[in-house]
């Protein structure tokens, strides 16, 4: 990577993968992230619709409680070097699938006659895995180190599920809203980070 963040320098280290292949991979992953951002928005809308008001009302603001193993993109994220941003994107995308599975299980009990919502939640888990893997492939192609997956994400998600279930239905609804919101934030963040690497994209 050149010192000028957000661009690819063809004069850089020859250990970097052939440029056209890397550019193609970045473009494809960016396109995937853009598509999934749209799906994530649809998922969120579908989710709030089935929880009932005040979920989905303008100004609805439940406490933004931390979710096990995952937080929102930090305010300073955009200022980090590109490989570090992509590493954080990949880590978040890796942590999301078990949380989305927990939300799907809750919703299967709360909204069993909402097949489209349940399908979207199932698809989101798969899509997060796919995008995370694609981002890691870009990192590998850039010659940057990829961090391993978060420690026991499935166990963290299981703990979250148990806690939410014990606390009641309303907290479970809030948890689902939080997870769907985080999914949208991270997919959108990934799209933005990859967009800066696309040749001809914003620096």
């Amino acid at each position: 990577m050149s010192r000028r963040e957000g661009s690819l320098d063809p004069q850089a280290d020859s250990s970097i993968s052939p440029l056209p292949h890397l550019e193609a991979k970045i473009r494809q992953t960016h396109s995937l992230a853009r598509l999934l951002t749209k799906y994530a928005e649809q998922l969120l809308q579908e989710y709030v619709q089935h929880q009932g008001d005040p979920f989905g009302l303008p100004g609805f603001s439940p406490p933004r409680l931390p979710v096990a193993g995952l937080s929102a993109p930090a305010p300073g994220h955009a200022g980090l070097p590109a490989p570090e941003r992509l590493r954080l994107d990949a880590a978040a995308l890796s942590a999301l699938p078990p949380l989305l599975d927990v939300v799907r299980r809750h919703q299967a009990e709360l909204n069993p006659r909402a097949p489209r919502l349940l399908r979207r939640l199932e698809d989101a888990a798969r899509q997060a895995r796919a995008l995370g893997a694609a981002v890691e492939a870009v990192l590998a192609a850039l010659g940057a180190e990829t961090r391993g997956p978060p420690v026991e994400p499935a166990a963290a998600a299981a703990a979250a599920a148990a806690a939410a279930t014990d606390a009641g239905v309303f907290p479970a609804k809030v948890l689902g809203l939080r997870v769907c919101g985080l999914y949208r934030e991270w997919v959108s963040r990934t799209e933005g980070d990859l967009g800066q690497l696309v040749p001809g994209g914003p620096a």
Partner: protein
Amino acid sequence: LLLLCVLGAPRAGSGAHTAVISPQDPTLLIGSSLQATCSVHGDPPGATAEGLYWTLNGRRLAPELSRVLNASTLALALANLNGSRQQSGDNLVCHARDGSILAGSCLYVGLPPEKPFNISCWSKNMKDLTCRWTPGAHGETFLHTNYSLKYKLRWYGQDNTCEEYHTVGPHSCHIPKDLALFTPYEIWVEATNRLGSARSDVLTLDILDVVTTDPPPDVHVSRVGGLEDQLSVRWVSPPALKDFLFQAKYQIRYRVEDSVDWKVVDDVSNQTSCRLAGLKPGTVYFVQVRCNPFGIYGSKKAGIWSEWSHPTAASTPRSERPGPGGGACEPRGGEPSSGPVRRELKQFLGWLKKHAYCSNLSFRLYDQWRAWMQKTHKTRNQDEGILPSGRRGTTRGPAR
């Protein structure tokens, strides 16, 4: 390992207040009352109930419904509750003075299920069983209600539960295999929700009495020589039942191309061809056939009609003479059909045979005469010259 900070659990050192609502996620009958409390905890201690308020499904509840029980507890009294707005539960939320959410509880207000009824079942080619039912008298319980179709052999065996739901509508189930013949089944539906359960009456049936099959395949419709008011319909007996002993009834329906009104011929028994008569000349007709496999293995019950075959189209030959409307099916053997003209003709021919000893008269002769008449009219028109509109100047021959 971070744990989820669940709503209601205080965050150390944050200065934030949280609360607990009681009861959590209650289930209530429509029209009943609810007494709830919101108890505030806080850091620093001394959280107060002053200024707290309630919302239900996002709407602020009137202050007169609340009262402060003590320094940290706000009570709520709701009467004559309506059914839940969504199946995931109504959202009852306790808010701080600044509007922030302190706690939530989901209310489930509804009715217990009523007895499902009107169970009907059918078996496709004796291979499976599909059943449909109607949920309770009113259907709407405002709560998620689970329906379970159960079945067992009448005199022995254990209860089984159907697993493939919503196959032909929201209240249906499909049993794909392992069904016994010649022995009755008992079938019923159980409905369950948070407020109770109900069970339908038991339906007893033998698979052989509720058999349906596929529509007849290979339906062909063709002209009958030059006869302008007739079409011949041929089909094949449903192959799935070819190895089984049964009597087949067929129904034919047909309509003019640009009409929505079907005419039905329903006395077509155990044959695979039929002639439609009394049709309009020069007209495209759509034809469909369906089958009822009654009497399988000696069953005495009427079977169940199959779906109609895909429409097949054909046109009658064109003629200037308008043909009669309506029609009936004539078997290829020339036996009488159900049309009024032909019925009367049948009676006349029968009388002739009895009283005038005209044994050679038959419908075949009549059809041949009609075909001859049409040819004769066409030839005469060609000799006399047809009017530009295609209308005849005069008509000759017997009226139809």
